[in-house]
């Protein structure tokens, strides 16, 4: 739910209760005030009638309401002595409405010429059901009006006020730490948003910084490892050359050299990976991918033959695409080597160049875990593998704005480079 709608919904619910409560209080207050002024009016009228009766005693015998709004009846002194003025609500038949309507009635006693009289004065009263109905409809209109106002205000004012927030949100959505794209912060007068922008800016800068320093660390560490590795390997090579060691020790030396060379390859791969990610290899040229693939197949022929794997190439299209040639070569050789390496001997690796892209197809008994294969050191656990080949391939395609996917269909692993 959007923030704007959220507040509007809240207002809508709260207003129902608030308006209801307010209407209730208003209703009783106004009713009270009406009764009060009506009773005052009746009292005043009573006094006028009593005064009039002194001048015109004939009205003392008016015992039906008919055209007037009072009746006078004689009463006993005993009764009148214990009597106090009383207001009450009652019903009276109204000719115009043709029904009984509520009226307010004042009963009082007075004395004239030693005779006691009882007087009843009436006045037509507010029709409560009508009042309630009117009030209800007014309330509905008021409610709708308020909601509409809130909606308009929210959409115009709030939207304007929240604009920097949404702008920031939109930018954060597109932000990617690897791409190092700067976020442009909207200037705002609102304190909270200023603070938010400031904090987000600081947080992002810090993350980018630590991301960069981590990348640099890997690159520097790999660099620093090069020389000691080179020295060790060279010393061992010279030693193997000079000393006339017995075969057993020679073999041991071979094992050490093999491990050191593996370490060198691993180190080189790490270095390559961080270089790709650190945006080196900017040089671009037009690459004829078919030729590149053919060249690399030639280079791997002996390797494949030794693994007893055949390489077949089908060309359905000619692909030319700009990119860094060194990276392209590494990409193709990585995928080809990977396919040859993981294919059971006696079978074949198929490379298919079509309009779709370049596919590397090799048979395999079970699918690989898609989410893991492109991560560092998460690939196959095969001996002598650096575990970085596919991670490097993925980094390369991302760098070159291409795509690399893995699929498993009919007992075949398929890696596809999309252009």
């Amino acid at each position, binding site marked *: 739910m959007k923030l704007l709608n959220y507040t509007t919904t809240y207002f809508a619910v709260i207003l129902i209760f608030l308006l209801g409560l307010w209407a209730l209080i208003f209703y009783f207050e106004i009713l009270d005030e009406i009764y009060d002024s009506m009773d005052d009016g009746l009292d005043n009228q009573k006094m006028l009638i009593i005064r009039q009766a002194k001048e015109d005693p004939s009205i003392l015998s008016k015992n039906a309401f008919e055209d007037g709004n009072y009746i006078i009846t004689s009463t006993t002194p005993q009764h009148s002595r214990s009597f106090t003025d009383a207001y009450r609500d009652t019903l009276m038949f109204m000719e115009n409405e043709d029904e009984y309507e509520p009226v307010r009635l004042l009963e009082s006693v007075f004395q004239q010429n030693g005779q006691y009289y009882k007087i009843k004065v009436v006045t037509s009263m507010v029709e409560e059901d009508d009042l309630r109905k009117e009030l209800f409809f007014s309330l509905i209109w008021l409610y709708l009006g308020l909601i509409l106002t809130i909606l308009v205000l929210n959409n115009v004012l709030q939207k304007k006020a929240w604009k920097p927030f949404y702008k920031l949100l939109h930018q954060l959505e597109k932000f990617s730490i690897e791409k190092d794209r700067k976020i442009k912060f909207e200037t705002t007068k609102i304190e909270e948003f200023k603070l938010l922008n400031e904090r987000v800016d600081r947080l992002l800068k810090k993350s980018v910084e630590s991301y960069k320093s981590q990348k640099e660390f890997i690159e520097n560490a790999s660099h620093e490892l090069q020389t000691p590795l080179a020295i060790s390997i060279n010393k061992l090579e*010279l030693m*193997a050359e000079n000393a006339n060691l017995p075969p057993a020790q020679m073999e041991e*030396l071979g094992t050490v050299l093999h491990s050191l060379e593996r370490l060198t390859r691993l180190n080189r791969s790490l270095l390559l990976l961080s270089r790709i990610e650190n945006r080196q290899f900017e040089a671009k040229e037009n690459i004829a991918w078919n030729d590149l693939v053919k060249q690399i197949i030639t280079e791997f022929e002996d390797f494949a033959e030794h693994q007893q794997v055949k390489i077949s190439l089908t060309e359905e299209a000619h692909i030319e695409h700009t990119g860094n040639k060194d990276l392209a070569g590494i990409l193709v050789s990585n995928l080809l080597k990977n396919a040859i390496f993981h294919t059971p001997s006696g079978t074949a690796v198929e490379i298919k160049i079509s309009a779709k892209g370049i596919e590397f197809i090799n048979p395999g008994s079970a699918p690989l875990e898609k989410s893991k294969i492109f991560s560092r050191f998460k690939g196959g656990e095969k001996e002598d593998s650096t575990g970085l080949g596919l991670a490097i391939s993925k980094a390369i395609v991302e760098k070159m704005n291409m795509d690399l996917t893995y699929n498993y269909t009919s007992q075949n692993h398929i890696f596809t480079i999309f252009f």
Partner: protein
Amino acid sequence: MKILIIEDEKDMRQNMQATLEKENFLVEPVATYKEAMSKIGVYDYDCILLDIGLPDGNGLEILKTLKEKGYSDSVIIVSAKDSIDDKVHGLELGADDYLPKPFHMAELNARVKAVLRRRKMEGNNLLEIANVTININNHQVSVDGESLELNRKEFDVLFYLCTNQNRLVSKSALAEHVWGDYIDQTDNFDFIYSQIKNLRKKLCDKNAEIEIKAVYGIGYKLLVP
């Protein structure tokens, strides 16, 4: 042949010196930019091995000075930075070759010899070892004057081993040199064996006096009687 090694890392310098002295080159090692500058001002060298990252200066400056003064010394850049920019920049400045660290001693040897050979191109481009003659220009090999048919890779293997005769050449050094830029992605170099086997057979058929000897688990050695 005089070779100047400019390299600040002591062990690295010693390794390079030992390797090249074995080939009967006259080797002078220096460790700093200053020393290097004073040496190149006084002596001529056939080949200079130049480390870019020196503690008291950039090796590329030495290269610039050399070229500005018109010296003809061949230069091979030896760098741990292994960065394409450095390579391109170095070659643009007139370096003859670029060798990224870590490298095999056999490779260093081969590169130095290739550079020296190019320098003396006008003269001899035949490599004669025992009764085997290798024509470097047209990739022809003959034994006792009789031509020996080799494919591209067999030739490269033989030539690389001959360049490093009587020295131990590790399998990975051979693979990286012969099978190209991408093969170092592979982690298993046993496939070299079949090429060596073919080569041995061909040499043997022609009664070549040289012999390719396997050195346990490490690599191969070309033995010359």
